[in-house]
């Protein structure tokens, strides 16, 4: 069974097709870099994969089940543009909250572990409101990985992360991949993305221009992909 199966997905905003007949399969353990210019449809696709929006046409299946089903959502971890944390709660309270929502029986213990892993142990009882940006990012990463998801969806995760947070995230991604998780990551950071990924999906104006394995040409010259498929230099 494929980890992700996207089949004939269209998404209309009014009459405007943000996604046009997008379909591809992702094996478990892959790291897919979702590339494309701004407005190509990457965020729209990720939101559909996360179950935050419904496709106008087509289906998305994660491990064979519909995304909106509860058991499926337990297996997914999402990191979007916002940090998705409550300013008025402490770091621990935030993680325990999401732990409970994801059905973890040992939420406080797990929260404690992840606070240590992301270097936030010292500020566990601090309100998120008072955190620096880097700390908020690291806590957001902790929240995403808290329930050991098998499928991880990232929307431009490296944007606006400080170096420490980038390092934490990269190691967590590598670790997740090692345990067989599947990762789909949209990004503008070509170099980091191509280095980390096993597969590439390029979206151009809502359509899938390329979906397949990462090729050597891409490693050697990250802009090769854009030049070949978009016919111009990367944005």
């Amino acid at each position, binding site marked *: 069974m494929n980890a992700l199966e996207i089949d004939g997905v269209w998404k209309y*905003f*009014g*009459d405007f097709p943000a996604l046009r007949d997008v379909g591809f399969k992702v094996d478990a353990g892959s790291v897919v870099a979702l590339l494309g210019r701004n407005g190509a449809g990457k965020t729209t696709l990720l939101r559909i994969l996360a179950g935050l929006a419904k496709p106008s046409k087509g289906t998305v299946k994660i491990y064979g089940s519909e995304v909106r089903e509860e058991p499926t959502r337990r297996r997914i971890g999402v990191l979007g543009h916002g940090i998705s944390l409550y300013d008025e709660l402490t770091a621990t309270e935030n993680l325990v909250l999401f732990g409970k929502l994801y059905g973890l029986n040992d939420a406080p213990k797990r929260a404690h572990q992840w606070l240590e892993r992301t270097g936030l142990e010292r500020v566990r009882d601090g309100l998120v409101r008072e955190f620096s940006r880097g700390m908020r990012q690291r806590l957001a990463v902790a929240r995403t990985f808290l329930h050991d998801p098998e499928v991880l969806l990232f929307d431009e995760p490296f944007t606006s992360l400080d170096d420490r947070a980038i390092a934490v995230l990269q190691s967590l991604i590598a670790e997740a991949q090692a345990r067989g998780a599947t990762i789909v990551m949209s990004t503008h950071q070509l170099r980091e993305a191509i280095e980390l990924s096993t597969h590439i999906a390029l979206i151009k*104006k809502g359509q899938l221009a390329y979906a397949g394995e990462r090729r050597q040409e891409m490693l050697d010259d990250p802009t090769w992909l854009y030049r070949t498929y978009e016919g111009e230099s990367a944005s």
Partner: protein
Amino acid sequence: MRNRILLLLTVAFAMLIAWNLKNILLGLPDEARQDAVYRILYFHAPAAIVGLTGFGIGMVFSGIYLATKNLYWDTLAASTTEVSLMLAAINLVTGSIWGRQQWGVWWAWDARLTSMLVCWLIFAGYLMMRRAVEEPNTRARLSAVISVFGTVNAWFVYKVIEWVPRLQHPGPVLSFRTGGKIDHQLETPFYWMVLAYMLLGVILVMIRNRQESISHEIDSLRRLAHA
């Protein structure tokens, strides 16, 4: 084809209203206590009947949109609700005029008028919300929810206000359902008027619906041009 139907309906409506008006204005006797003005009932009550039914039909169309996700049904629901809102306004205005004639006040808090006012406010909110949302699918979704809530609520409004002891028609009411002997002559124009309002409603919904569809097409063409 559609144009032909529209034309046919308009002709039917014109003929019906002309004939009915002639009956109402010339054929009926003046009522003892209310003089000539009681004829306003023929414009007042049918508007309420058709208007309220229209809100219900709007809810049905909204339901069909939710089931099929076809935006056509949302446009139809919006057109129907708008026209019903207009009919409700007619009911309120004619009621106010009649009240002024009969009871000397422009607005007496009687049960039926108050209920209609609340319904009008609910569905005016529906239209206001539609203006605040750009994206057609979101707008359709949210409108459908308001339509369902509003229509169920309208039922409550009518029942509850009926039971409030304070809010009664302060004067005698010409009601066909309160028994008593109603002349057959007085009753028939009423039913014809209901039919006339129904025709008017359908005509206006068709026109409004076409307006909306065309404006959607223009929007999408504009988006295509920009993209």
